């Protein structure tokens, strides 16, 4: 039972029920889509850059509690970061959810996803939004099709 609580921490449940930065951005923003066909998790992520820095980020979509909370916490975490900083954060997040590294202070609230590493089948849920962000930050984000982590 303790493991289940580790996965569905209060913070994650809160963000899954009340996702932050839920919505879209207009012209001039970048957009990418994430879609895990097998489980049906789907999200669209919009990023507005100012120079090399993420000024605004929003998402819409539907999915399991882990994927929704992950997208919501991502939007809070990357706002104000440079592209390189956001990518570095993705790398740390990925290490965390795959159990390759423990949470540290630089992850902030994202440390709540540490429990995912005990549930290998859910890594794809936690990382979908991040792979989608990675595509949104790429040179031609809309040239590629939807991102999948399945």
């Amino acid at each position: 039972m303790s493991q289940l609580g580790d996965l569905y921490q209060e913070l994650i449940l809160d963000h899954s029920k009340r996702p932050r930065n839920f919505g879209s951005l207009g012209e001039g923003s970048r957009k990418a889509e994430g879609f895990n066909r097998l489980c049906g998790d789907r999200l669209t992520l919009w990023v507005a850059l100012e120079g090399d820095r993420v000024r605004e980020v929003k998402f819409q979509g539907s999915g399991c509690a882990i994927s929704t909370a992950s997208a919501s916490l991502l939007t809070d975490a990357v706002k104000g970061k440079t592209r390189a900083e956001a990518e570095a954060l993705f790398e740390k997040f990925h290490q965390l959810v795959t159990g390759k590294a423990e949470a540290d202070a630089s992850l902030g609230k994202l440390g709540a996803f540490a429990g995912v590493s005990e549930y290998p089948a859910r890594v794809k849920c936690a990382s979908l939004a991040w792979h989608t962000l990675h595509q949104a930050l790429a040179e031609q984000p809309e040239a590629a099709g939807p991102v999948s982590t399945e």
Partner: protein
Amino acid sequence: MKPGSAGVAGTACEPKLGASIREEFPLLAANPSLAYLDNAATTQKPRVVLEALRNFYEHDCANIHRSVHQLGERATEAYEAARGEVRSFLHAPSTEEVIFVRGTTEAVNLVANGFARAVLKPGDEVLVTGLEHHSNIVPWQLACEISGAKLAVAPINDRGEVELEAFRQRLTPRTRMAAFAHISNALGTVNPVREMIAAARAAGAATLIDGAQAAPHAAIDVQALGCDFYAISGHKMYGPTGIGALFGRREWLERLPPWQGGGDMIRSVTFEKTTYNDLPYKFEAGTPHIAGGIGLGAAAAFLRGIGLEAIAAWEHDLLEYGSARLEAIPGVRLIGTARRKAAVLSFVVEGIHPHDVGTVLDAEGVAVRAGHHCAQPVMERFGIAATTRASLGLYNTRADLDQLAAGLRKAKEMFA
């Protein structure tokens, strides 16, 4: 039967089912608090099956059909006796018409491949239904691709039933094969197979029944059904993985070309010409899964010993009880409400993704499947990506379904 009433078990002369048979399944005996409700994915194995496997490897292990030594004879005897058990289980006319395969998927591929090479011509049609899982769709798509035939689909209604009239309408003079499930893995719908087979035969089409889900839940009589092919998987009927059987009517098995070459399927080989072995060996290339075949025979005997009618009655009571328990939970919606249904409770919970439901249930000791059940067209028909599926077996009890309902209430508390 209403929830809360006495259930079907009772007097001592009735077959052992539910809690009283759990001790014969080592995995369940070792996990008394586990509610294993993923039987449509695979079933647990009774001791008699495990002992049959062990006995073969410990006492009779040799290759079959080719050894002069006694061990080889014992192995051959055991393997052919198992074929006899499977023949009895399916009520096939002869053991020559029972082919051992890896499972239902391989059986469908074997037939589809033969049809692609020897039967289907451009413009011919293969008819499947909207209920099928991928294993009874994709082999036919491949066969159509090779032969130039077309795939037709009989739709399902909102209850998840194939309507006989709609099925009939899609049979044309060009339909060469109608392939459909006896019982749907995703929804539990029991198809009106007898009527569907009769309709297909009347239209001049051959029939293949995917019996993977039916074998553990219903008595099968391929002669009474009148089908041309019937496929089963060992692991879904309390037998080993990697083994299954295909019944094929003799005329068809003689007409279809072999699909794999080598080993047992050969009578004589020269570089100029090879002649094939008699049935059923024509379709059994290479050293088969001997232990698996023996284990499948043991599983078939185990099921027949209990009686498929008794199992069906037990599970039907559980299905009604479970349906009532789930429908009593606000926000839970059953997907697939066919009037004739077996052993499957597929459902969605409002506002909670099936994977979250599955994870919470797992923590509560309830094993279910969450996903599309390898039947994406079925999910699409109901406009959903996935369901949570509880599927029943002969060792399940009302207590397992109470545990499921309690787990669902917990999931609702957590995510509400």
